[in-house]
């Protein structure tokens, strides 16, 4: 394990007018690990992600990337650092094929003309490295893909563009059992290839299946950041619902 976290948030605070949404939030994302970000609705997960991705600017606290303090003022800054956020409503164009989607906005050209062959080779290689074999042809429009396949394409896009921290917002929320397993497998492989992965999920099975660490938010504060091996299912649920754990149930 690396000595410093890839991305570290310290004492992040954010309020919208009189409403303080985040208070003294800390989060560490280590390379090669999946950090699950859990919390009830309204706990501040999305606001935190927006602070990381440059959509919101935090009012307080510091953000460290690779151990250096950085300020993320816009989505462009985040992308520049290599932070990629994959939202639920996948940012794919249905009418374009897999290769076209993976290179959208960053097309490779050869003398002003799109270099389809090179793009196809690179896309194919990226998918192979993630052991994604479920897509029959790279040249089919993504509208023909299943929900799970679409997620894997979106993840592969992040890998292709050498993202270092990938934040997945509820990647399995709309998927069936088999497809969920397929996506989680890719998420795991993503971390194994050295990226820092943040997985936002409500599903404890998913969290325990792939995560190395769990960060729980409770009413805008960090309730805990723990190793997955140190906690039980029930304790995490307790962290989410009451902000504390370990003491309740057992006599102290």
């Amino acid at each position, binding site marked *: 394990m690396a000595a410093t976290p890839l991305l570290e948030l310290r004492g992040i605070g954010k309020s919208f007018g009189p409403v303080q949404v985040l208070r003294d939030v800390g989060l560490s994302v280590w390379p090669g690990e999946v950090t699950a970000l859990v919390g009830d609705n309204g706990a501040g997960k999305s606001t935190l992600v927006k602070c990381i991705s440059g959509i919101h600017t935090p009012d307080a606290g510091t953000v460290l990337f690779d151990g250096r303090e950085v300020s993320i003022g816009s989505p462009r800054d985040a992308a520049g650092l290599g932070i990629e956020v994959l939202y639920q409503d996948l940012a794919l164009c249905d009418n*374009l094929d897999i290769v076209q989607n993976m290179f959208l906005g960053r097309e490779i050209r050869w003398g002003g003309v799109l270099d389809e062959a090179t793009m196809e080779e690179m896309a194919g290689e990226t998918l192979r490295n993630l052991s994604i074999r479920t897509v029959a042809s790279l040249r089919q429009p993504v509208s023909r893909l299943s929900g799970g396949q679409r997620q894997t394409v979106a993840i592969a896009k992040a890998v292709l563009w050498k993202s270092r921290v990938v934040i997945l917002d509820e990647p399995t929320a709309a998927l069936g059992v088999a497809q969920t397993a397929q996506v989680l497998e890719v998420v795991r492989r993503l971390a194994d290839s050295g990226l820092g992965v943040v997985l936002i999920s409500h599903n404890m099975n998913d969290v325990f299946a792939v995560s190395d660490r769990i960060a729980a938010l409770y009413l805008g504060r960090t309730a805990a950041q723990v190793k997955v091996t140190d906690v039980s299912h029930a304790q995490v649920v307790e962290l989410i619902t009451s902000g504390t754990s370990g003491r309740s149930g057992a006599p102290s």
Partner: protein
Amino acid sequence: MSRPTVGGHLRDYWAGLRGGDLGTLPAVLGLLVLILIFGSARGETFLSALNFANLFNQSAQIVFIAMGLVFVLLLGEIDLSAGFGSGVCGAVMAILLTDHGLPWTVAIPAAMCTGVVIGIVLGLLVAKLGIPSFVVTLAAFLGFQGVLLTLLGGGRNVAINDEFVTSLNNGTLSVRASWLLAVAGVAGFALVRLLRWRGRVARGLVAEPIGLVLARIVGLAALVLPATWVLTLERAVNTQITSLKGTPIVVPVIVTFLVIGTFVLNRTTFGRHVHAVGGNVEAARRAGIAVDRIRVAVFAIASFMASIGGILVVSRQSSVDPNTGGSNILLYSVGAAVIGGTSLFGGKGKIIHAVIGGAVIIVIENGMTLLGLNSGVKFIFTGLVLLAAASVDALARRRAAASGG
């Protein structure tokens, strides 16, 4: 991945059809049916070389406006002003030629610039102010009708006699040039297809089976060479007075823009981004595409193409009047794009759709006139064909939604 075969490709194509990806198929089948009907009812006139050549001249304006509209429709927008826009551009050219005595080398570029400026203004209104394109271009439709009337001083008919301009949509190539054009066209297509095939095979990518590549080339040759043969037949009514043979000049003009437009949409970053914005604006924006700039650009392209349509119709009529580009020209043009297979919902369309759809519209118009049917029947029938095409589009969309995801 398995080795591609012709059979496998056909199966994929069939799967695509069933999934709602019909492309140009309905239009091509429709065109064949129409030709059979009119050919058997009025074979001696409809199938004559004279009429065949005439179809190209007749359809030029609609095809050009429709080619421009494909760009706009790809974004899911519409340009209702393209018809009168083409009329205004045609009038600008005619007035510069006659009233100001300027040569065509000035008048034609001026008309084209007028088109580009019109398009940029429309595009800015849609992109920057966020007015729906339907409303912006409806206002422009009324406005341009007025501009045309004003330019023509309340309704005069400006006749032009510039030889070059009138030859554009009336003249023909020599027989030798016609054959050169046909052979060069087929050879060029073959070269592009074979080089692409070889390039993909050399890099170990999945390529079309060679049989299919050859079939496409032979198919194009089987279409172009007999057509050229017909067009090089003598078609003057009285050969003692004059001789009329050769491919109409407007054919290479249309083909040139067909090739350029297809290239832009399929092989350039701009074209890729047009498709992306039409498919999912949000995804395009997140990918860093300047969505507004794409919007303005497609309107500029549409009005530019409409200006060429205007130049060609003025060339054909040798004059411009307050209704040039009016009446049903715009509706026929939108109809041409949609009948050809371009979706009204955005994200799906090709330049060739404008040409095939334009052919369907003109064959209906031309064939029904030869059958001696009145305008009322023609409009009803054309309306039904457009409705059928729009239904195919909407049903294909539903099917695609049902089969994907």
